[in-house]
């Protein structure tokens, strides 16, 4: 796993990335057959609040839950230290405040690029909680950068605009959302969240080892899409 724990500093030049991009998503395409289901689905969107996604699911009579875990992870009260004195985020507190749902509640969880940008101390506890919240047979979609991605790869919010099409919009944090822990664990930079690490395939398989199956889709934009089934 390639870690990006240090900061390149606020003076570092950010890559020139358009504010909005459109991309095809094979993982989303795989999920599309579920959206046509007559039975209302329970969907959890863990990205930034998206009117497009809420409209997409409510128009199809599904129930949509929205919870922005990256913003939630910037809560200053989460900062603590482990037994070695290293600054970490308190995963117990985080899970007491967030992802509070009954077990086996969701049919689909849309993680988007959350694991790549979430603080190291939260990744495994969050994935464990997501496993328990998914129904057996429920599906989770996540995106991972490939090793070619650099630490300044911008974080996007994802809007569903078609059966297998996403609009990606670069996240620009509000000033108040930037208040957060000090030191290297702070995930926010001047205009967005910072890529924390790059998982290789083996790490991804380990991360989702409790799930029944895992499917990879390699995209052209240095992103692997991963669809896992509980």
């Amino acid at each position, binding site marked *: 796993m390639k870690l990006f724990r240090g900061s390149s500093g606020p003076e570092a030049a950010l890559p020139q990335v358009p504010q909005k991009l459109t991309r095809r998503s094979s993982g989303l395409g795989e999920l599309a057959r579920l959206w046509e289901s007559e039975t209302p689905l329970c969907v959890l969107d863990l990205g930034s609040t*998206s009117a497009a996604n809420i409209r997409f699911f*409510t128009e199809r*009579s599904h129930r*949509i*839950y929205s*919870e922005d875990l990256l913003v939630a992870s910037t809560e200053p009260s989460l900062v603590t230290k482990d037994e070695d004195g290293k600054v970490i985020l308190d995963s117990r507190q985080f899970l007491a405040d967030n992802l509070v749902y009954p077990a086996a509640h969701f049919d689909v969880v849309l993680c988007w690029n959350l694991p790549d940008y979430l603080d190291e101390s939260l990744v495994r506890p969050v994935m464990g909680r997501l496993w328990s919240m998914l129904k057996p047979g429920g599906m989770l979609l996540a995106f991972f950068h490939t090793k070619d991605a650099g630490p300044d790869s911008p974080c996007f919010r994802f809007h569903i605009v078609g059966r297998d099409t996403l609009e990606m919009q670069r996240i620009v944090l509000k000033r108040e959302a930037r208040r957060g822990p000090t030191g290297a664990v702070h995930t926010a930079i001047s205009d967005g969240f910072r890529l924390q690490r790059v998982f290789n395939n083996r790490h991804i398989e380990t991360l989702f080892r409790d799930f029944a199956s895992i499917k990879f889709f390699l995209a052209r934009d240095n992103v692997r899409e991963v669809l896992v089934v509980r």
Partner: protein
Amino acid sequence: MSAPLSGDLAQIGKSVVIKGELSGSEDLYVDGQVEGSIALKGNGLTIGPNGQVKASVEAKAIIVQGKLEGNVQASDRVELRKSAVVSGDISTARIAIEEGAYLKGKVDIQGRVEKAAGK
């Protein structure tokens, strides 16, 4: 900002703190702090940019510019403006969310559920 639903509009200013049950039959603009419950059946509620509401909220139309913690039930529509921070489940017939708004909770579109159930 959208125009209020009717001519009557009560206002809670930003220095006002209210704890308890609020109900009425006119539109309400909250720019202060309210804790408890707000019931304005048939009327509109606007939570201004300085508003901090910790309450279950029921109204015909609800516009949020500030902070709202609690479940939301609107018989007509909910609008979350870009500065809105909402934690709670929303049940409404229509919803509009501006880019930048923050929502933590469920969205239930009531009209569609009824329509689906009536099939």
